[in-house]
């Protein structure tokens, strides 16, 4: 007779108890292993798949779109979205929440509702390993088997350039001066910092490489400056930019910095931080600047989420470390044809923005559905639509709209049909501010309704 899980647990408990009276320590190790393995073999508490099962790891802007549209394009497919968070918090528009221009409810959304509305399973668990041979995803809630796997785990931070392996410094930077580009607690800490700021320099940084949300650090600088000005705070934002110039919507941000925040933003382009002294609260740059700060939020370089490396589908890209090693047109892993990677882990030089990741999710859903349904598909460019606020009350914004085309000679993607609206003044800026909120509402509808 096969032993049930309950029996196994009982036995391991008895063995563990018995071993504590034994004298041989090696026996104890064996018993511990036994008791552990009885947990390991458990499958996740999910119904049997009713069709080919696609497991999507990561419920961000890309993963949510893949789950929804895959089910739409191939209804027989069984879709499971594994996400470690129990609540969705939007990174796009979070800068507005930091300075009270929108409330938290605007940014938070419900995974259960998304799954219910779109007929897939939301499985609230953390993935720690994947066995590509047996096609199993290991989570803290049990094992999930797949036929196809989509990895959309997003970014991790890469502090190496600043810390050179000093884990004490890295942990301090992460916990005391978080970047605020992976939502949740980082954003709460940053909001508190802004609210409680009394005087002096508030340091923000813009990393090199292809970092998440190109305009966001400039938007954040503008909005914190706007907040300081409104609240009469005797301080300024010092924006240390590793890039030689503002990376996107340059005219719009430049004019906002100069015309609205002359006394509130000090912009230091082409400046790499060479030393961070958290005791003295001082940073030094390669341009020779020494900046004392009252508070700060350090945005380091980014890399592909570490899960990719664990799974063995990562490679350094032209921009960042350990991004997905995939075919840029099919999103299929070069190491494993059953794995697709999408969203901010992509190695292509697309803008790492919510809109881009979401439109890519639509495409990846179409690709996998056509594989399952035996149909053809045509590559279509992801779309970058990105608004940035430069001030509040009323919200004024600038924007960019672009697609991408592949340059066969240079073997890179370049912008196609790109246009920007960088005039934040007058009626146009206010209309864009309204467009910013309307854009977000539409995107949340796309992912959750």
């Amino acid at each position, binding site marked *: 007779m096969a032993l049930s899980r309950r029996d196994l647990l009982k036995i391991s408990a008895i063995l563990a108890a018995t071993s504590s009276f034994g004298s041989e320590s090696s026996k104890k190790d064996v018993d511990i292993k036994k008791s552990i393995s009885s947990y390991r073999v458990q499958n996740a508490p999910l119904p049997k798949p009713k069709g080919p099962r696609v497991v999507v790891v990561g419920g961000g802007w890309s993963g949510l779109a893949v789950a929804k549209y895959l089910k739409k394009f191939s209804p027989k497919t069984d879709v499971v979205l594994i996400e470690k968070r129990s609540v969705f918090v939007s990174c796009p528009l979070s800068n507005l929440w930091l300075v009270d221009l929108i409330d938290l409810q605007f940014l938070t959304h419900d995974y259960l509702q998304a799954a219910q509305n779109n007929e897939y399973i939301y499985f609230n668990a953390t993935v720690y390993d994947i066995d590509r041979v047996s096609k199993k995803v290991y989570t803290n809630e049990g094992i999930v088997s797949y036929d196809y796997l989509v990895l959309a785990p997003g970014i991790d931070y890469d502090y190496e350039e600043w810390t050179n392996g000093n884990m004490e410094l890295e942990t301090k930077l992460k916990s005391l001066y978080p970047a605020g580009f992976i939502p949740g607690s980082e954003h709460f800490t940053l909001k508190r910092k802004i609210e409680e700021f009394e005087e002096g320099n508030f340091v923000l940084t813009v990393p090199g490489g292809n970092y998440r949300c190109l305009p966001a650090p400039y938007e954040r600088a503008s909005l914190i400056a706007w907040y300081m000005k409104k609240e009469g705070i005797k301080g300024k934002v010092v924006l240390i930019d590793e890039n030689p110039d503002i990376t996107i919507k340059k005219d719009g941000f430049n004019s906002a910095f100069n015309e609205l925040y002359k006394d509130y933003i000090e912009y230091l382009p082409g400046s790499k931080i060479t030393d961070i002294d958290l005791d003295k609260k001082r940073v030094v740059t390669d341009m020779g600047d020494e900046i004392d700060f009252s508070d700060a939020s350090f945005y380091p370089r980014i890399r592909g989420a570490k899960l990719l490396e664990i799974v063995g589908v990562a490679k350094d890209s032209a921009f960042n470390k350990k991004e997905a090693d995939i075919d840029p047109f099919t999103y299929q892993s070069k190491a494993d044809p059953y794995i697709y990677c999408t969203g901010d882990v992509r190695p292509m030089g697309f803008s790492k923005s919510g809109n881009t990741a979401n439109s890519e999710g639509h495409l990846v859903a179409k690709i996998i559905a056509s594989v399952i349904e035996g149909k053809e598909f045509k590559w279509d460019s992801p*779309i970058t639509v990105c608004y940035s606020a430069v001030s509040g009350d009323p919200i004024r914004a600038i924007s960019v*709209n672009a697609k991408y085309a592949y340059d066969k000679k240079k073997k890179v993607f370049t912008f196609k*049909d790109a246009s920007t*609206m960088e005039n934040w003044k007058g009626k*146009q800026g206010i209309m864009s501010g309204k467009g910013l909120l*309307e854009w977000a509402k539409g*995107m949340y509808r796309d992912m959750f*309704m």
Partner: protein
Amino acid sequence: MERRSFFKICAKGTLLVAISPFLIEGYLKADDGRLFKSFNRVKLLDCYGNPLKEEILQEEVTYVFNYPYASTPCFLIKLSEPAAKEIKLRDEEGSEYIWKGGVGKDKKVVAYSAICPHQLAHPNPNESFLGYIPKEKKSMAYKEGGVIVCASHLSAFDPKTGAKVLAGPAKEPMASIILDVDEEGVFWASAVLGPAKFFDYFKSFKPELKEFYKNIRKAKKLVSLGAVVKPLDVYSKEVVIY
């Protein structure tokens, strides 16, 4: 007759005139019942409640009327040139349907459900992110004018060709409203052709619909008597298009 079998007949395009005499011009030919639905035949009215005639419509102005439900806005546009004819269109899932063209004297008048097929942006009494850009103007969404744009996510649609997608994230055309003109030159609306988004719209905008129509039941009421046509900048307090 059940709606389903009616669609089948429509699809074959044979008994259409016999069943639905008001569709004399034979507007529709959807290969799938999902893509065509007839509603009440409703007379379009001007702001004073008089039957709407072509001469009062200004060219290249966006007009709005609510149809087929009390809360679902549609655009009525008199283009500066005749619309195209017999345009083959596809919805996101690949189903094909045929848009027959414009109506009125020079076949310049077209009507579309003003709910963006991408993420359902639409004109409401407060604001509209959707509208027609006259030929000589330009918007961020598209390199030329003479198009309907949704400023929310920058999709552009061609009103001359059944609201085919020209640019942006939308994957399917705006649904078109079947119009006809009677012997007295009055416009009537009678059906919706193409990927209508009414179900998703009612689901997604419950709070907004409650605000403007008191309750969801009133918002979902089918228009039956007449539909008043207003310029977009009268229908919505603010038109947000760039």
